[in-house]
């Protein structure tokens, strides 16, 4: 384990998670990760290694067969997804989790579901979202499904901030999004970290993710292959990629 980072208390920690969709077939075999305030921690790895499954398990969509998820002293293993917001965890899945047939404004209102009775608060937060993302304000009465991919991501980001979560689980935020918007989205994620949020980012866009990551987990076929601070991996992204690609390849041909 690297000791170059100062010991910081993590906002969400998972130990030894094992899980699968069908009983008897495990996709994760004993994975341990931490989300740390102010840090962007990136989970990398080839397709089908269980990166997305890991986030689903962390958010409660899939129950781990073994292992534990905690937020400080609170055990979150087995907590239903709809209750995760109350524990300060937000999840942004690969496909934007917006409601395509509801208007942008109603999408935002639903983002305030957990505090829907505090009307002034809801209104203030929606106005703030419009100020931060003017395009959402312009299109407030349009159905969310008519927004572009990048705008849907903005809507989802704006909405996810409403309950003021401490931890963000983000899955492939730039998948199928035009490159111009990609940089904006990474900048958004960086901004969250600057505000002290703990980010766990799963990404296929290795260059983009490493550009903002503080810490890297590399997964291979359901378990952690290696991990360490971004600086430890050096600046040679190609090396990292070829490293796990090579070992992956070697494991397959062995």
């Amino acid at each position: 384990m690297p000791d170059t980072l100062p010991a910081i208390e993590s906002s969400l920690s998972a130990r030894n998670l094992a899980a699968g969709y069908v009983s008897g077939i495990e996709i994760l075999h004993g994975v341990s990760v931490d989300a740390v305030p102010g840090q962007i921690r990136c989970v990398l790895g080839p397709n089908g290694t269980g990166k997305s499954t890991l986030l689903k398990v962390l958010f409660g969509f899939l129950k781990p067969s073994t292992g534990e998820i905690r937020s400080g002293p609170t055990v979150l293993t087995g907590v239903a997804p709809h209750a995760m917001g109350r524990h300060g965890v937000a999840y942004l899945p690969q496909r934007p989790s917006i409601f395509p047939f509801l208007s942008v404004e109603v999408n935002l209102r639903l983002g305030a579901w957990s505090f829907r009775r505090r009307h002034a608060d809801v209104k203030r937060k929606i106005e703030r979202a419009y100020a931060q993302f003017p395009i959402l304000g312009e299109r407030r009465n349009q159905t969310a499904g008519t927004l572009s991919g990048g705008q849907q991501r903005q809507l989802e980001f704006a909405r996810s901030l409403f309950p003021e979560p401490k931890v963000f689980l983000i899955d492939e935020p730039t998948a199928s999004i035009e490159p111009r918007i990609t940089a904006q989205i990474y900048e958004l994620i960086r901004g969250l970290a600057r505000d002290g949020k703990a980010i766990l980012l799963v990404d296929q866009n290795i260059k983009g993710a490493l550009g903002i990551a503080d810490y890297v987990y590399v997964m291979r076929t359901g378990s952690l292959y290696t991990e360490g601070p971004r600086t430890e991996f050096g600046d040679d992204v190609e090396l990292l990629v070829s490293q796990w690609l090579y070992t992956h390849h070697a494991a397959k041909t062995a």
Partner: protein
Amino acid sequence: MLDYILIQAANGLVIGVMFALIATGLTIIFSILKIVNFAHGEIYMMGGYFGYYVITLLGVPPFPAVLVAMAITFLFSIGLERGLLTPLYSPRIERKADYGILITFGLSVFLRNIAIILFGPFPLRPPSFIEGSLAVFGGLMISYDRLVAAGGGLLLLVALIWFLNRTVWGQALNAVSQSRESASIVGINSERMYMLAFGVGGALAGGAGALIAPIYSLSPSMGLVPDTQAFVIVILGGLGSVSGTIIAALLLGISQNLFIALLPDPSRGPSYANAFGLFIMMLVLLFRPTGIFGRHAVAMD
């Protein structure tokens, strides 16, 4: 002749509004719980009997009795949902659509027979909302009860549209129907929405039963025909679309009554009424499988 057609169209409108109440409930349950509720006609029947006994045993006047019947049907439906449908939400049940069909079909047979035991097989008729008839179109009459049923039904439909579009609970129902995953990401507890959807759907059917009782009387098998018609309407309206369902219900009610009216032998008309609806459904399924107002395909999962 024109008078006759107009009055038949007016009658069709009354029936259409009743169809709309039943079918919107069915479509709300379908789009939220993703099951076809085969017991929906029986919940409509129960609502009618609840209204009858609230009037005759508790002495509640007919108008508030409709609301009381709806409240009882709401709670009754939630009881059924909690007791019978919770296995649908468990990951252990794999063939959820099959489970839904079997359990609601069984429930429909059960409720019909329990009604025979509890309420008796003979038709019961609660007191009129308002006695008498309104003379319209030169000598032809339309009873006040029909006007009350249509007016009350339209009010309920307006209230429903307001609830679904303007309240945060209605919007949450809509959200769950679009994506359960996204709904739980924003913190909506889907199970509470299933309860609400089944309760609201049941209350609408129960309201229809209570409104129509003075016109057609109550019998344990009264739910069978409207149930079939409601399936036709839900498909016509595009599964899951509430406004499409309302429009389809009004169209079917009116066109069906005109069909009866214009049949050369009017005495045989009513026997063909159901066939007419099913014939329309076959045409729609052949030429527009997503329904007239369908917005997207709905997967059973």
